[in-house]
């Protein structure tokens, strides 16, 4: 590793030409993220005036947020280009626990709602 005599082999290097390509990707992704955020803010400001049902607005927000999160993790955090083993060991445990939490919130929320209406 870093303290051994051998050169450190996990550091990523790239050439000037590859750097140019990477920078183009970074800036493209910036415009995508900015566009999604602008849509979210715009929708947040106008949905009441346009009379859209909040349920659809909420779902749109959640989908846009997940898209944004995917772009940040996959491209800025470079997870898409890591080895599949690393990708899975991060994504799979997180998804399992996150989905479990969401399931708990929905079932418990419904139950609490039901109990409150009962009394």
């Amino acid at each position, binding site marked *: *590793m*870093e303290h051994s005599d051998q*050169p*450190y082999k*996990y*550091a*990523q*290097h*790239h*050439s*000037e030409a590859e*750097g140019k390509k*990477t*920078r183009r990707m*970074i*800036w493209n992704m*910036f415009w995508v*993220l*900015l566009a999604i*955020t602008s849509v*979210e*803010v715009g929708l*947040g*400001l106008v949905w009441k005036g346009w009379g859209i049902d909040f349920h659809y607005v*909420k779902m749109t*927000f*959640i989908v*846009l*947020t997940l898209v*944004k*999160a995917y772009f*940040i*993790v996959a491209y*800025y*955090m470079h997870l898409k280009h*890591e*080895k599949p*083993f*690393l990708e899975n*060991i*991060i994504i799979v*445990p*997180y998804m399992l*626990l*996150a989905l479990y*939490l*969401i399931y*708990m*919130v929905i079932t*418990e*929320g419904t139950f*609490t*709602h039901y109990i409150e209406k009962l009394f």
Partner: protein
Amino acid sequence: MSHTEAVDSKEAWGGGTSPFGVGYGKLMMWFFLMSDALSFTGFLAAYGFFRHNYSAIWPTAENVFTHFPGIESINELFGIHIDHHQPLLYVAMMTFILIMSSVTMVLAVEAGQRMDKKAVIKWMFWTIIGGLIFVGSQAWEWMHFIHGTELGAFELGIGVVDVNGVIEQTQGIIGRWADDTKQVLMLPWKDAAGEYITLSGQALAEAMANGQAIHGANLTHNEYGHPLFADFFFFITGFHGTHVFSGVVLNFIIFVNVIMGTYEKRGHYEMVEKVGLYWHFVDLVWVFVFTFFYLI
């Protein structure tokens, strides 16, 4: 061990190549971020539960965070009327600043992979500036939330009110004044016609005898509505703000090391990648906080 087995040196893993293809530090950073993401997921899930549970009387963020710096004292600019009530605008600006600092961070990582020390210094500098502006903006928003409005609100004491035939307890419920004269108090419930139920005259005088006036928010009282809203706001944005602050500190340490040429000597800028991962994670969490706290 009581016995030892002969190990075929050709089949045994010598500990040479990592199956993950990344260095130890980066791998540990990923594990840390995954566990930290779960903490934030837990907070937001708890927020969602209570938001749904008290959906009738929950204050929406667009009615709470309506300030924008620099326009409080301006009524007209170039002949255009300036509205002081600006929902979402300030938090949208904060989101933009954090996305921008994420871009400068990934540009610093890219420069490091080309061993371009000058560019790494430049982009890390802008990342730190962006992080400081974001933390400052959060402090400004906290200040406004804690101080509240001059008009304030009224927290009701023990009592009951008839909401469309259902008897609701009023203790701890926040009523908003309909206007500056404080003659009509709007309760958070709506009647069958979709209008807020109000208290005025004798009913208001009775309610005011056992309640209290509230300005701003803290952990137990919240001018804008349910106190749990304030608790979650302080806790979630506070926890995120702590992450941003420690991210700025880490970035600054690495920034000094880059200037001193530590990574030039080491032959790689992987340390910049590691703090970069952390910084992107801070941005990632904000993406979710922005949606679930401010938009929904």
